[in-house]
């Protein structure tokens, strides 16, 4: 809804510090109160949106109620309007205000360098020269976003691994089950060292492929014991027949 100046003034008068107006005047003095009113008025004229205005007033009231340092209040109030022009929603701003300023110093510093239209303000000569040099191409933004998203997801996967395990059981189960060969002699040596486990693994692999992921046998101990028993029986029978 578009507003005319008179309406804006009326809304400010009716809403700003309605409960804590006197407290605010006592705290800052009437002059600063007027100055603040003027500032908010200017923001509102620029934006000319009732919702933005009401929201700004709400935040201003909240800040007055919850912060008691003049500098902090001043700083936050001045940042509020700029935040709106930088893509923050009302709830984001409230979150920002609640969290305090330390965490967001860098962010706020950047915002102070924007004017109300989001343009970069004139700064010190050295800094200005640097800023005009820095060019960020679209494809650089894309690459940075890809990297950022990858990092984000990898951290998330690591969290899942911590919570539910990382499949290390599978590593043990299939350890040495390499069905590959390497051309380099080093690897050939490595492979021969694993030859014993490969025999077991080929068996487990067969079982694994048949059942598409079902558990392979736990060990070959039973097989070895069975063969040993058979050998003992054969030896006994041989001894028995030969001795008779």
């Amino acid at each position: 809804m578009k507003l005319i100046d008179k309406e804006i003034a009326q809304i400010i008068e009716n809403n700003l510090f309605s409960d804590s107006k006197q407290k605010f005047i006592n705290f800052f003095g009437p002059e600063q109160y007027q100055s603040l009113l003027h500032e908010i008025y200017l923001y509102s004229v620029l934006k000319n949106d009732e919702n933005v205005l009401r929201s700004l007033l709400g935040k201003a009231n909240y800040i007055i109620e919850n912060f008691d340092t003049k500098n902090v209040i001043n700083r936050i109030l001045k940042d509020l309007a700029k935040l709106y022009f930088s893509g923050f929603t009302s709830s984001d701003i409230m979150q920002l205000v609640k969290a305090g300023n330390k965490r967001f110093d860098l962010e706020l510093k950047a915002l102070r360098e924007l004017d109300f239209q989001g343009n970069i303000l004139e700064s010190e000569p050295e800094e200005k020269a640097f800023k005009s040099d820095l060019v960020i191409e679209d494809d650089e933004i894309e690459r940075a976003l890809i990297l950022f998203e990858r990092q984000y997801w990898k951290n998330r996967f690591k969290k899942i691994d911590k919570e539910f395990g990382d499949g290390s059981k599978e590593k043990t189960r299939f350890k040495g089950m390499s069905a590959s060969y390497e051309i380099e002699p080093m690897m050939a040596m490595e492979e021969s060292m694993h030859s014993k486990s490969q025999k077991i693994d080929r068996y487990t692999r067969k079982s694994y492929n048949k059942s598409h992921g079902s558990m392979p046998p736990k060990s070959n101990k039973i097989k070895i014991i069975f063969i040993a028993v058979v050998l003992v029986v054969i030896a006994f029978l041989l001894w028995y027949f030969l001795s008779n």
Partner: protein
Amino acid sequence: MRNRGRQYSDAELIARIKEDSDGLDLLYRQHQRYCLSYLNSLHNHDEMQDIFHDAVLAFYEKISKDEAFVLRCSIQTYLCAVCRNMLRERLRKENRFINFEDEFEHDNIIDVLEPIESENSPKMKAMHKALSLMKETGGKCYEILLRYFYLKQRMDRIAYEMDYTNSDNAKNQKARCQRRLKILTSNVLFS
């Protein structure tokens, strides 16, 4: 996240991934064990987990960014193929050349997680930090940049999905966010 027992079909998983971020978690958990077993059956390598992470991300980037991408096999087959390609790639970098003799035939899948140009440059690191600040502090900037530059969405779609009144508003907002990213990056670079 907690529903480990349920198995989702490929179509369900892809729909979930496109719909919300939990979808990728589901895919990760559903295929992790099989793919790691498969990888370990090919070769013993210290970074199997990392390779699998990359394979999932390669799949994610394909389905979310590449409109021309058509999945012609199951997700599991695709992931295993990418895992295999990436394992081979890593071993090649270590000057180890291996012929895999696995029985899965993924030879028609050549995808890997594409490396990013000048990944470790100071500027890229500063942009990374700036994006992190943007995301941390909330606001729509991160999302609008992500949708436009990463997901390659059109402005009218962005406007619709992010509740802007029209695509011009969304375009203006995107421009402001780009400026904000530039300032934050400058500050990080020279702070």
